[in-house]
């Protein structure tokens, strides 16, 4: 667990809009008061996004730390100097508070909206928080009357910093989660310019990395070499599936490709593993062992291997009782946006029950978007895309400000559709600046409290569900489709169909390291389960059934929030409708 001072420092930096290198944090934390250190470092870092160790040294050496305390107020929010001042103290106390507030309620009993607003122990800390509420405006307007009148303090700070209201011992919502760590984010790293070679590079990278996972299991011979091997030899090969076809007699030919060429592999229909062919997707990586035919032109497959997640995989857990809410597909701006459910959810987060929920991970589709399907404007509640994000930001403000929020984009969002999708543009981030949420690409690996969460919007799930047999992947059991992706160690294996690929210098869609949690959305169905100890969660949505869904008979699961215990990886799903 990182030291308390480190965490506060990171918090301070994030509240100012900076990420920080680990080394920089250490340097700064050792320099004294985290508030001042952060301020100094921020000054030093200037326009950069990341505070580097260089910045930190500059801050320390340059005597920036000696500055007068007035400069504490961040320039963009000058109206709350008091709260900023108080923040450091509260933050210090926070961990102890959290330790004591461990009172899980069985999920079924909860209907968060009612519970939250009427909760008895959320009545103090009035003045400051009240003034904040007024100042922060619309964030609370959408709530039920109970929230505003009886328990003003239940809405902690709305401005994104630790709340003074929690100075009282029994107050809730005093969270001070350490910053998540983000890996495999394409944002700012998209170097592709749409050239042929980049496509080649992307797929070669896919092959290299996935083949690396299989190397231990088979003794790979290049396709070119196998082509010249005499008939009857034993052969083993790792390759991307280039083609799958059936023969007249019902056997299967799987064409495998590596960087030297392709080789056809015959899977006899009476083999025990033959049914696995139904699960195959084009362009996933496979290893096979078998014997060459007498003429050497084809390999009879004896065994088949997927990169897969090792059964021995041991997930990491948090060192303390802390929870994360995994949600997705908010679709603000849609006429079907489930406002009431969302409000109940946001309100619940302010209750003591939700005290341990320090992280909110959102898996894409913040808004309904524009031009996603024909004549969409006729079904939009908010037609302007920027207004949609503004409205989303308002919804986000209803969530306690001291939570760590991470967002990836989805296919309805105003970013490129081709995957990997970089995070929201500056312009959109500015709109969604509430609570200093973190923005990262789709997919990204987000590590919170040591637990790694692979966040992917889930666009490929449609195709996986369409291609694979019902029992392996269906809309009613979306997590089973996710198992397949884990097994293939790639979030969107099949190229050329629905999936759109933007060529980059590496294949960001490969699941390089086994995550502890795999979080997707997109299909608007709730489903979760464990695959080789990896928790797969498809988190439903906040949009009621649309006309389109009605026409194809999809009944979305809306208003559910899966709450994950990061210390046990147990999950509770809360319902807010």
């Amino acid at each position, binding site marked *: 667990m990182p030291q308390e001072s480190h965490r506060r420092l990171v918090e301070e930096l994030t509240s100012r809009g900076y990420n920080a290198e680990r080394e920089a944090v250490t340097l700064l934390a050792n320099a004294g008061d985290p508030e001042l250190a952060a301020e100094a470092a921020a000054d030093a870092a200037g326009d950069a996004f990341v505070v580097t160790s260089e910045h930190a040294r500059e801050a320390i050496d340059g005597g920036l730390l000696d500055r007068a305390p007035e400069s504490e107020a961040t320039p963009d929010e000058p109206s709350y100097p008091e709260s900023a001042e108080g923040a450091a103290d509260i933050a210090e106390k926070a961990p102890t508070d959290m330790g004591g507030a461990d009172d899980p309620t069985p999920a079924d009993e909860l209907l968060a909206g009612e519970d939250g607003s009427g909760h008895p122990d959320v009545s103090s800390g009035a003045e400051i928080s009240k003034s904040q509420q007024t100042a922060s405006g619309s964030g609370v307007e959408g709530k039920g009357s109970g929230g505003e009148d009886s328990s003003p303090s239940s809405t902690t700070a709305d401005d994104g910093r630790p709340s003074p209201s929690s100075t009282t011992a029994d107050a809730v919502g005093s969270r001070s989660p350490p910053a998540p760590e983000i890996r495999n984010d394409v944002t700012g790293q998209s*170097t592709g*310019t749409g050239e042929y070679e980049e496509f080649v590079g992307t797929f*070669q990278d896919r092959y290299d990395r996935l083949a690396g996972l299989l190397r231990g299991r088979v003794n790979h011979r290049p396709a070119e070499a196998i082509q010249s091997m005499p008939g009857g030899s034993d052969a083993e090969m790792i390759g991307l599936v280039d083609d799958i076809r059936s023969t007249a007699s019902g056997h299967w030919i799987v064409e495998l*490709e590596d960087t030297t060429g392709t080789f056809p592999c015959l899977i006899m229909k009476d083999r025990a593993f033959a049914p696995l062919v139904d699960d195959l997707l084009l362009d996933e990586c496979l290893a096979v062992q078998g014997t060459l035919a007498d003429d050497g032109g084809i390999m009879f497959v004896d065994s088949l291997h997927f990169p897969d997640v090792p059964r021995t995989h041991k997930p990491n857990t948090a060192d303390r009782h802390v929870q994360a809410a995994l949600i997705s597909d908010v679709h603000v701006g849609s006429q079907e946006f489930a406002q009431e459910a969302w409000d109940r959810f946001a309100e619940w987060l302010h209750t003591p029950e939700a005290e341990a929920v320090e992280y909110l991970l959102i898996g894409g589709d913040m808004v309904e978007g524009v031009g996603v399907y024909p004549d969409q404007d006729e079904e939009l509640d908010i037609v302007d895309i920027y207004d949609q994000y503004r409205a989303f930001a308002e919804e986000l403000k209803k969530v306690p400000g001291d939570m760590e929020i991470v967002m990836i984009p989805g296919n309805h969002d105003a970013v490129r559709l081709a995957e990997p999708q970089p995070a929201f543009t500056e312009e959109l981030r500015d709109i969604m600046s509430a609570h200093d949420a973190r923005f990262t690409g789709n997919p990204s690996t987000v590590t919170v409290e040591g637990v790694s969460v692979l966040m992917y919007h889930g666009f490929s799930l449609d195709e996986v569900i369409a291609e694979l047999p019902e029992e392996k992947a269906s809309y009613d059991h979306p997590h089973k489709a996710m198992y397949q992706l884990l097994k293939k160690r790639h979030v969107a294996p099949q190229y050329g169909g629905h999936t759109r690929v933007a060529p980059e210098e590496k294949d960001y869609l490969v699941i390089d390291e086994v995550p502890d949690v795999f979080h997707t959305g997109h299909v608007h169905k709730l489903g979760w389960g464990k695959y080789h100890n990896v928790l797969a969660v498809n988190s439903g949505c906040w949009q009621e059934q649309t006309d389109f869904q009605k026409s194809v008979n999809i009944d979305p699961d809306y208003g559910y929030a899966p709450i994950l215990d990061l210390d046990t990886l147990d999950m509770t799903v809360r319902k807010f409708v």
Partner: protein
Amino acid sequence: MREDDERYFERMEERLDEAFDRAEAARAQGYDPQTEIEIPVARDMADRVENILGIPGVAERVRELEGQMSREEAALELVEDFVDGSVGDYDSREGKIEGAVRTAVALLTEGVVAAPIEGIDRAELLENDDGTEFVNVYYAGPIRSAGGTAQALSVLVADYARSLLGIEEFHARDDEIERYAEEVALYEKETGLQYTPKDKETKFIAEHLPIMLDGEATGDDEVSGFRDLERVDTNSARGGMCLVLAEGIALKAPKIQRYTRQLDEVDWPWLQDLIDGTYYDSGGDADEDADDEAETDDGEEADGEPSEPEGPVRADPASKYLRDLIAGRPVFGHPSESGGFRLRYGRSRNHGFATAGVHPATMHLVDDFLATGTQIKTERPGKAAGVVPVDSIEGPTVRLANGDVRRIDDPAEALEIRNGVDEILDLGEYLVNFGEFIENNHPLVPASYAVEWWEQEFADAGADVQALRDDPHVDLDTPDPRTALDWADRYDCPIHPEYTYLWHDVTVAEYDALAAAAAGGEIGDDGLLLNRTDDVQRALERLLIEHTTVDDGEALLIPEFRPLLRSLGVTEDLERQWTPADLSERARTWGAEAGDADDAAVADGGRPSPPSADPDGGMAIRDEEGDSPDSSDSADPDAAVDDAITVEGRDDDHAAPSVALPGTNAIEAVNEVTPFEVRERAPTRIGNRMGRPEKSESRDLSPAVHTMFPIGEAGGSQRDVAKAAKDRTDAGRGVIEVSLGERECPDCGEHTYKNRCENCGGHTEPYFECDDCGIEVEPDESGRVVCPRCEWEVESPEERVVDLNAEYHDALDSIGEREGSFSILKGVQGLMSANETPEPMEKGILRAKHDVSSFKDGTVRYDMTDLPVTSVRPEELDTTAAEFRRLGYESDIDGEPLQHDDQLVELKVQDIVLPDGAAEHMMRTADFVDDLLERFYGLDPFYEVEEREDLVGELVFGMAPHTSAAVVGRVVGFTSAAVGYAHPYFHAAKRRNCDGDEDCVMLLLDGLLNFSKEFLPDQRGGRMDAPLVMSSRIDPSEIDDEAHNMDIVRQYPTEFYEASLEMADPGEVEDLIQIGEDTLGTDDEYHGFDHTHDTGDLALGPDLSAYKTLGDMETKMDAQLELSRKLRAVDETDVAERVIENHFLPDLIGNLRAFSSQETRCLDCGEKYRRVPLTGDCRECGGRMTLTVHRGSVNKYMDIAIQVAEEFGCRDYTKQRLEVLERSLESVFENDKNKQSGIADFM
């Protein structure tokens, strides 16, 4: 039939016989696949049915039955004949069913379309789960051309045959039922259906159909749910089946029921449930219905509030025609928008049958986008129409850059002033004939007041119209103003249309203001001089009153002011004789919404506002915003109320009490002010946009084909025979290996691929030898060739080595041609026919020499847009009265002897007018045929055409796509319009109407000599578009009955116009106006096609649409948007939106999607890969690879789309979609770490 009709047909058949004689002599020589002519003549429908089907005996039986019963009943009657074997020679039960079904479809489609042969593959007997047999009918895509009724009846016929044969019903399995539902939905998504049954409906039908519907896969997409079914051999949608089920059974259930009721053997009780929709689960359905009802009730209540205001009768605007707007094809008017085309009833002589009459001046003023034959998508009465020039209607009205407003009735004038047009205030009249309303079953819409209506009212009022017409000093069509006013005063008759202004297009307040302005004006020598204000100017422009701007734009001069003054209630001493208070409540509020009227009572006129509740629906306001000083806050729904007061306040001369004038339509006020009646000048406006451009071009395959001789890859991509013959191969110079059919000479036994034995001159026959066992097989009756021992199909084609060099030079020598006589001789890569029979190369050489090319069936064709014409002047057809007399025309339409070239003559049914391009092409074809006869067949030439006049009187084939029957036509003249004008019955005989349809003509002897079924591709649809039979004479009862709905009178009666004002059903007045149907079966069925309007020339206006003369898509789109700015009736922002929405966005989105899921291609060998090979290079040849979708093709429209969106003020929604896309493009195509610098970086 009258005697001269008989003479006409005999004369034509005489020429036909001459051609047949010559062609028979030629084909008898054995150079062609068959020694007989392969296009049999059908004298009637029964003949055609028999010939198309090739089932002997059908014609005779059809003729027997025809007199006794309807065609549908005859089809059912024939089933019995097939079953008991009295018709058709089928042994098997499935054969009998198949024959009966095909015959039924052929009968119902008049033996013209290809559906019966191409749309029904076979009928077969399969086994139910309980072991009983059932009937499966296997449909294919071309069944579409049969239409819903014939499709549905084919199933009924199959079932009738089934029950007569005692075969069990089909019992669909559950998964099959589900599959039908999934498949129909898939087909709808992929291809689209006219009517898509709900899943429940489809399942209900599938569950109850006693016949299994099956068919071949027509799409690439596969169903996801019910795949790999045992009795369904594809996972794709079966198009033919889907059509029959959805557009046939589901849509035509009531029609089928009529026939099932007549048949004891066939009982489809479930049809009633299908019709009633009672197949739903009762529970949910009831609720749904209840909801629906509740909604309708609410709606009605809202509409039917007690105080429903009486208002002008108008058809509701319909905007469907604007859907799928295409870049480069302009909109001419938004729905029912003022300033758009004004509907006038009537039929011009080149009009009717889905056409629209437009003034040629309008065609020029819309920047030549409209030409004769251009298709327009229209608001009503139909969906689309072909444009025809009619100059006897009113032309457009424009405001010039100098402010003058003029009506342009002369195409030459239109061209002269075109560059100076500031705004097109009105597109002029738009002629639609009554028959269109019958055909489309569209309620009549209020008629424009026109001279033909006024004349009848004038006569009814007691005027001696005939005497006036004979008076040389009186012009009834355009009397001078004093006369017109005098007539209106003396007779109780509405004012002449010439002086009826468009009062319904100005508000009551504007009317009041204009009266005030007139009273404040002065009368000079040239006319009435008014102070120019925006209101006055706008009012005059909407009224379409011609005026000029004088005194540096300070004043407006109206030359013809007397009728205006009278209509304004202002005396010639400029004394205003009324005040708004004199108007009745009704007149003051006419046309205002109910809400507005109520508001009027309480309005207290606080806010100044310009007139805005105008009949334009607020659209034209924006145009004026720029120059109107107080228009900043227009668009206020009840602004008219305030405006009334404002106007009133301004008008100080009248100390009248202030009265609200919320009415948006001044016609009632005018009628209260004037002593005579003023009718609505143009109550119905018709919006439309351009559809397809007109067409007139030769049909060339791509690449063009001169000779149907296979040369493989030898001739390069040009398929150059000379090059192939010259190039050296391993086997020698010009020796190539190609696949060709094997034939055998019955006389000497010689084996060859040629049609004529080189050994003995005998005619060879296709030779079938089983590849495996080597025995010779003969084709069976159905044409299948199956080896009796190996039980597989045997084909005659085989790979063989051909000395093309020798072949080519022998051919040249045999007809005495040199290589220099043509530029290139193109062959084909391979033959697509079953027996791969080649054509003698001599034919190709002569085609190349005369620069004509061949269609897949060996004929030379010319395509053109169809337009109707019922009367012509020899002069306009570039021919003479003398020539016409030679063709058998004796008198003009009035019965006067035909003496002068400009006399109007009624066209005979099979006579056609060729466009210049076709004439030129036909001349070359004629030369080719003559050369062919002389040099190849050694016969006398037939045509000997020196100049194009020589083509007059020659016979051609007319033939439409998707049909299999040609109609004989006779050339009578030529036109510079790029269309094929012919009698509407001629087009209907080909199963075409004239709403932009196009089809082709062939020269008669070319078809007889060169067509062979042996050339037709051996694949689905191969026999479509091929003249399997020809009709030598048109029987008006046996054509598409759409043509019978054309009106054929000289004048529509007053009652008709009055009925139109009430939007009566067209059926109510059908008896008043004679239509084609009324003369069917009488002596007059070929005669008396009168018209109400004349036109100066069939080819007025531009010869080609600007769409065809402008260069690339961007230029066209610029012109389209430019025009949208000029037209008052068009909202240019909407046009820009639609262009972006329908053209740019799909292009951008589609290409971006294509980019990120693209295939790659080898630059060297052309091999394609679904995904980049991991090797990077081509796996086949090691060559360099490239993308198939490049950045350039993805973002080519990005900048222009953004620019258009900006320039035309598109919605933020649209702009934002473009923004998001632009950023996506950047994100995909730009390196984050090395962004391309924009120009801004250097500023």
